[in-house]
């Protein structure tokens, strides 16, 4: 029983990371029909931005040594700027392109960012210790819960609440929801398309920054592809939850976190290594049997 609860907490915090990543991907998909494969690389950049740019094997902290009150906005700003730059240079010229073309473009962006990191920071993974204190455990009865997991869950909830308040209570939030549902109609009503898209990219940047910091605190290492697996699972989450639906992205994120953790815990050992294969098989099954996902979006993604 304790074991199960322990797993559940693992699932919750892993699911939180997936949910935040999935929100970043889902937000852009909703508005732009862009499946942003480069989102994971924004996460990597958030982590790399902590250290002094150099190809040395040992990482020296740069922004990572700042007071947290400066650290958070600095990292967020860097990632936001990068996200906006990807929009400006790659996606904005492709506004009329089809989803697969956008997907290829985001693939190119991802490739560029990854190799950019490689050029600046070198190819070898680096050890990094951010907020080491967060890795201590809290004892609750028989349960030992890593503090970081609690922080992850709290941050996830806080960001989700913040995002949903933004979307429901602010003018830009309402415009963004309108644009996500019917981009052209929103433009006919004077909603500035590129501006709203810019906000969406900025929000996806903030989400990526949060995930990057939480993830690097937990993993303690940097590598130029560190964000990729997160983005891939988040992508699964987006499909499972319902493409274009933000509640779907959250539910999907937690569902994938749960499935992955439980497969890891309860699959027989010789099948455990195929965990990822099972997770991605779920994607194909969902597409085949419930293409609208767990929580369908309002708008029809694809006719025909």
């Amino acid at each position, binding site marked *: 029983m304790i074991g199960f609860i322990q797993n559940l907490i693992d699932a919750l915090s892993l699911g939180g990371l997936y949910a935040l990543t999935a929100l970043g991907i889902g937000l852009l998909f909703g508005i732009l029909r862009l499946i942003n494969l480069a989102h994971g690389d924004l996460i990597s950049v958030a982590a790399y931005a902590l250290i002094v740019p150099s190809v040395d094997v040992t990482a020296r902290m740069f922004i990572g040594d700042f007071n947290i009150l400066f650290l958070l906005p600095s990292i967020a700003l860097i990632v936001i700027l990068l996200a906006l730059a990807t929009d400006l240079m790659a996606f904005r010229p*492709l506004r009329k392109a089809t989803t697969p073309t956008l997907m*290829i473009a985001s693939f190119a962006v991802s490739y*560029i960012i990854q190799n950019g990191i490689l*050029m600046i920071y070198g190819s070898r993974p680096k050890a990094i210790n951010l907020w080491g204190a967060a890795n201590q455990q809290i004892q609750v009865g028989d349960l030992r819960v890593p503090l970081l997991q609690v922080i992850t869950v709290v941050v996830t909830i806080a960001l989700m609440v913040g995002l949903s308040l933004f979307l429901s209570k602010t003018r830009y939030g309402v415009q963004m929801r309108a644009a996500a549902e019917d981009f052209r109609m929103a433009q006919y009503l004077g909603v500035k398309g590129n501006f709203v898209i810019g906000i969406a990219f900025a929000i996806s940047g903030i989400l990526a920054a949060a995930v990057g910091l939480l993830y690097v605190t937990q993993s303690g290492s940097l590598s130029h592809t560190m964000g990729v697996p997160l983005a891939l699972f988040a992508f699964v989450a987006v499909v499972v939850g319902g493409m274009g639906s933000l509640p779907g992205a959250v539910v999907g994120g937690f569902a994938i976190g749960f499935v992955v953790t439980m497969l890891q815990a309860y699959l027989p050992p010789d099948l455990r290594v195929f965990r990822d294969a099972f997770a991605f098989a779920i*994607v194909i099954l969902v597409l*085949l049997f419930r*293409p609208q996902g767990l929580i369908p979006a309002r708008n029809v993604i694809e006719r025909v």
Partner: protein
Amino acid sequence: MDRILSNIRTLQTPVLLIVLLAIVSGLASLTGSDAMATTIAEMMIRVVVVVGLYVFIGNSGIISFGHISFMCIGAYAAAWMTAAPTFKQIMLGGLPAWLQTEQYPFLVAMAFAAVLPAIVGLALGGAITRLGGIACSIATFAFLMITNSVYANWDSVTAGVSSIIGIPTLVGPWVAWVFAGVAILAAWFYQISRHGLMLRATRDDPVAAQASGINLVKARLGAFVLSAALVGLGGGLYAQFLGILTVDPFYLGLTFITLAMLVVGGMSSLTGAVIGVIGVTIIVELLRMFERGSMGPITLPPGSQELGLGILMALILVLRPTGLSGGRELKLFGRSRPAAPAAPEAAQAAPAE
């Protein structure tokens, strides 16, 4: 006479492409360097893979992110057939006896490298080609992840994270060229067949094509299986070119490079597929030389090659979405007119772009 002319018209594009590859290969071999021979062999193998990719993507208009899986499956199929039995008995205990104890000839291995992916392609394609374009693309992406995870962890048949060694290296530039030619001809004959034309019709206007009685799923599935076979063949060649095999290369990086080649060349024509491979290979090689500092005063930092490729692809997508070929086929003469009754094949050969 008319008939001969029309045959020449029909076949000029694939023949020209094959000759073009021979010229590139011949020019490169003039340098006499081993490194160049390796580059050319690899380029020819990529022609097989990208042409295979083109058969599905170009004709159906659906982007697949999963075809490198077929390359992986084909490469391992070839390795299973040709690696030294002593190695297979020790390391690959999960293989059936007929694979474990025997070593098959090259051509048999290549056939297996095409057939096994085709079977997998038939099973997968049967399920996912009925999905809409985006969903189908996503499913192929998931398929890449699945194959990677399975092949990286199924120790008893793939040696897991360690590598399969002792595969005879029989593939050099000219052997690979022959297979590139085979792939180009296969793609061409598919493209001008009734089946290929129907699929291209569904690409250009799915609703109208279906309304005129074309079975969308069947048309897509045929292309999917053929393309899986060709890409698998490319994988088989790759295994017998390297002589040693791991799962690592068959993942996002190679998916990106092959897609980049197709995009740069132009994904809606066979000429685009071939030109894309040649063009990207040349650019990447140039950047690589700059990185090594063998191009005089300018030395680029490592990673420039990949960065350059990414930027090139983004630029092509934005500035010339139809790629270098502009969606047209390479032709010397005979702008074929659909109305010309004397040359029906030629008329079919020129898709309305």
